[in-house]
């Protein structure tokens, strides 16, 4: 994050909204927390009761989108407003990749973060939304470092590793996190000449690659999504380096959503303590049924360019 310089001559300066500091700042506040997918106000209450730091309002959780097929779009504004009315925590909502009008509508509704998401059916096969044009901040998915830096260059203020949504299978999330973090580690060891090659290989702006080389991390926070079904899954991705987790189908497709939601929140706080993880993992009933990645008809993570 770029710290802002203060202007000593302006004791009561004007208020600026929609700045990078304000947008990335909300992502900083969500760190260490759990953002839960919810499809109605009742689920939103359960999520808030369990200690979610934000909810993601959407019409169907990814596992249902996967099962039902068809085109998945932005949710009905009435449903988003219903969720906003019952919780005090931030409310996020999804727009289709490239569908800037859905994003405009979500901004008009006053959602706190827009997820330009591969879980919905893409609206544009080559362009993502120009996210600099908005006051509301955006989160975008990434499977590798190049994709993450391209999204940041378009104005994303939070990156989530994609994983494979709706599968209850953590393997893709682990692959994406390891890829992104592993490449960042290598870049910190590269010399200046090698950074040009990295930028070319990653198809990412050189300036952002140089920033990663200096800091060892993305210029925005990185969370993890796609396949988290248990407290142990949440702790795994956080030990790997994710700064918070998104849980989609994993909670409301399980036997006991309220207990599982609370356990995942506690796992995110105690992600390095196996004794507490053992305690919170007990007696949660069945997790959501998982899917093998090799047998999927559609890989949602492949969407995005």
């Amino acid at each position, binding site marked *: 994050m770029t710290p802002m310089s*203060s202007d*000593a001559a*302006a*004791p009561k300066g004007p208020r600026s909204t929609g700045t990078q500091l304000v947008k990335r700042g909300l992502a900083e*506040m969500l*760190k260490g927390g759990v953002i839960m997918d919810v499809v109605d106000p009742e689920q939103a209450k359960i999520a808030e009761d369990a*200690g979610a730091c*934000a909810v993601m309002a959407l019409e169907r959780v990814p596992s249902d989108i996967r099962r039902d097929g068809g085109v998945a779009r932005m949710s009905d504004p009435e449903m988003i407003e219903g969720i906003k009315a019952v919780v005090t925590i931030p409310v996020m909502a999804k727009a289709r990749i490239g569908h800037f009008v859905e994003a405009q509508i979500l901004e008009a509704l006053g959602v*706190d*973060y827009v997820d330009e998401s591969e879980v919905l059916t893409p609206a544009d096969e080559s362009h993502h939304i120009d996210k600099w044009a908005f006051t509301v901040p955006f989160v975008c998915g990434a499977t590798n470092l190049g994709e993450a830096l391209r999204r940041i260059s378009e104005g994303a203020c939070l990156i989530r590793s994609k994983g494979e949504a709706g599968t209850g299978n953590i393997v893709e999330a682990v692959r994406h996190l390891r890829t992104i973090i592993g490449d960042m580690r290598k870049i910190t060891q590269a010399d200046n000449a090698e950074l040009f090659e990295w930028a070319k290989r990653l198809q990412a702006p050189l300036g952002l690659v140089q920033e990663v080389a200096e800091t060892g991390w993305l210029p925005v926070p990185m969370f993890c999504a796609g396949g988290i079904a248990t407290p142990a899954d949440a702790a795994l991705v956080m030990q790997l380096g994710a700064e918070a987790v998104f849980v989609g189908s994993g909670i409301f497709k399980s036997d006991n959503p309220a207990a599982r939601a609370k356990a995942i929140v506690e796992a995110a706080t105690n992600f390095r303590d196996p004794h507490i993880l053992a305690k919170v993992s007990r007696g949660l009933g069945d997790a959501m049924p998982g899917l093998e990645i090799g047998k999927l008809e559609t890989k949602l993570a492949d969407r995005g360019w």
Partner: protein
Amino acid sequence: MVIGVLALQGAFARHIEACTQLGAKAREVRVPSDLADVDALILPGGESTTMSKLLESQGLFAPITERLAGGMAAFGTCAGMILLAGSVLDGRPDQRSFDAIDLTVRRNGYGRQVDSFETDLVVTDIAGGSFHAVFIRAPRVEAVGAGVDVLARVGDDPVVCRSGRVLVAAFHPELTDDLRLHEHFLSLTGV
């Protein structure tokens, strides 16, 4: 002298960086045993409802209340200010706070994220010109009790307050490079 930073959820790492830059020792506080060797506590920005839940489930609410009653210095920013306040409006009915400073605060009192803002303000008792302040879904102070000093305002609203060794800010000094508020807090810890 060790500064504890409540590390249940939120921007705790930023506060640890700020303390470290000022040459203070800082450590994360997640479970009650972490409190033992801590001389002062920072409550960071984040989601106050989430932190309030976790304070209970981690068994931290009672021991922190006890330490605050015993005079431990504390610094709360945004959600941390809500947690230290005496009275919280627009919170959840089960939301608890430490009542360590006599303030009434309204959660998200400046609106939603699209209304979050940055501005410059002057903090009494802090030299060196104005302070650049980042307000994110910030709480709004609606009433100030006796014995509470208001050190800064935005418009008419108090945004930095102090009572004894408890300091609160409605914004996020941990998100900028200006360490003067952290420095002021360290001076309150009495070391």
